[in-house]
């Protein structure tokens, strides 16, 4: 079969539910419930660091998770530090796409209640440097302002001052450099491909909660009672997965029948 027909079918299967929502139910999984309950119970004044590892190729999946988590945190009495240790391009994604999508309450003041720190190079080394000396790595925030003058940054001297670290993407680096060294609690917003990596850390208690891909973001949006981008994409997600499952089943049946035909011919000979 020409592969282009399969590609065309996938496009139709995705676009139709986006235009005509079916309204399939989205049950809340225990994983998302665990993360929601943990986040909701954070004490007043908790200082949270969130490190989105988004690139231009991965932000359609990670951005809904980041947005829904930040929306939840912004409505709690918490202080948020948004950092970027992944790619330089993540800076633009967070500044121009993620932050404008947030519902920031009017009583949340930039500099006092939340801060966006620009790019910290070095990936794991960057996380380690930031955790050991947050004000010594970079002096400017994501908007070019003086970071050292922001009141929230006066409250942190090292990783032990962080009450929660949220890794959006791979949790390994932050587990090694923050959770292990400073005993900082961690949660993870994992992409689909990284879910299998994150689960052992959840089982061992190193991660307090895990959100998996856009499905987790949709469930979280429902728990927050603010359905958004992730919920609107769930019908299309279900449709394309059913299409893939049927394709795999039909492909395997065809393969078995084809094999039997070959074996049958040899027996006759």
């Amino acid at each position, binding site marked *: 079969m020409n592969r282009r027909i399969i590609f065309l079918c996938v496009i139709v299967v995705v676009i139709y539910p986006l235009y005509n929502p079916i309204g399939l139910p989205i049950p809340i999984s225990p994983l998302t419930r665990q993360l929601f309950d943990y986040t909701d119970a954070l004490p007043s004044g908790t200082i949270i660091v969130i490190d989105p590892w988004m690139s231009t*190729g991965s932000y359609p999946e990670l951005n809904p998770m980041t947005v829904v988590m930040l929306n939840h945190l912004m409505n709690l009495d918490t202080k948020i530090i948004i950092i970027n240790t992944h790619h330089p391009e993540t800076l633009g994604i967070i500044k121009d796409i993620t932050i404008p999508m947030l519902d920031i309450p009017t009583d949340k003041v930039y500099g006092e209640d939340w801060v966006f720190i620009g790019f910290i190079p070095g990936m794991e080394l960057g996380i380690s440097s930031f955790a050991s000396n947050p004000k*010594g790595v*970079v002096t400017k925030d994501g908007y070019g302002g003086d970071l050292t003058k922001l009141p929230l940054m006066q409250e942190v001297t090292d990783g032990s001052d962080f009450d929660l670290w949220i890794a959006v993407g791979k949790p390994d680096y932050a587990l*090694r450099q923050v959770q292990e060294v400073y005993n900082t609690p961690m949660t993870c917003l994992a992409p689909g491909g990284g879910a299998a990596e994150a689960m052992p850390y959840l089982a061992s208690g190193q991660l307090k909660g895990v959100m998996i891909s856009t499905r987790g973001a949709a469930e979280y949006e429902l728990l927050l009672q603010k359905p958004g981008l992730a919920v609107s994409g769930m019908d299309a997600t279900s449709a394309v*997965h059913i299409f*893939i499952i049927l394709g795999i089943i039909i492909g395997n049946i065809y393969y078995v029948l084809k094999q039997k035909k070959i074996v049958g011919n040899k027996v006759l000979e």
Partner: protein
Amino acid sequence: MQIPEIGVLVAIFYTFALYSILYKPNIFYKFTVATLIGAASSYWAIFALNSSIDIIQTRLALQDYSIILALLVGLLLFTSFKSDISYLSRYPVMVITSVGAIVAVRGMLSAQLVEPMMGIIKPLFVPGNLLDSFNNIIIIACALTALFYFTFTREYKGVVTSIHRAGRISILVGLGASYGTQLFSRSSLFIGRMQWLIDPSRIMGTIILTVAVIGFILYDKFLEGKSK
């Protein structure tokens, strides 16, 4: 519905151009890839320069003059462009890789070996909860048999063969689950992009480019038929 601004139209064009590889390799795809590589490389270069200047200024302001040594070692990387002194570029590479490895190992043993293994130690029977008991037995059995699969000190016969086979099945189940989540991830990326394209503020641009793509495909088919 109105035609989006030029920047959005360019983004929609690039999206269609990248997906055009699904039809066949074409000049629009190659152009888009070349543009992406050029833009990303220059963006990274400027960012690296700005970040380096910012870090050097920060450390000097804190009277940490060891950054000057780090700067000089880092500049040695550029000696790789001149063949007679390119051996000097190995020193900064050595520093980068060794420091990176040491920093990674610092937390690795506990965070990625000991603690996850502690997570496997679970009760085989949970009173009043058969499902949890069953889950715990499966987790422990799969973990042990999967670990045993990678032992090569005993000949595989008898009971050892069965354990080895069980380990292989455990690994294959894990790989299957990983493959499923990867598929989920890829479909999420595609759906996210489709949501962006059919947004009401951009739908007019999407329709224009869709008509253009259909026209391109029909023209291509016409040329194919003509050449036959």
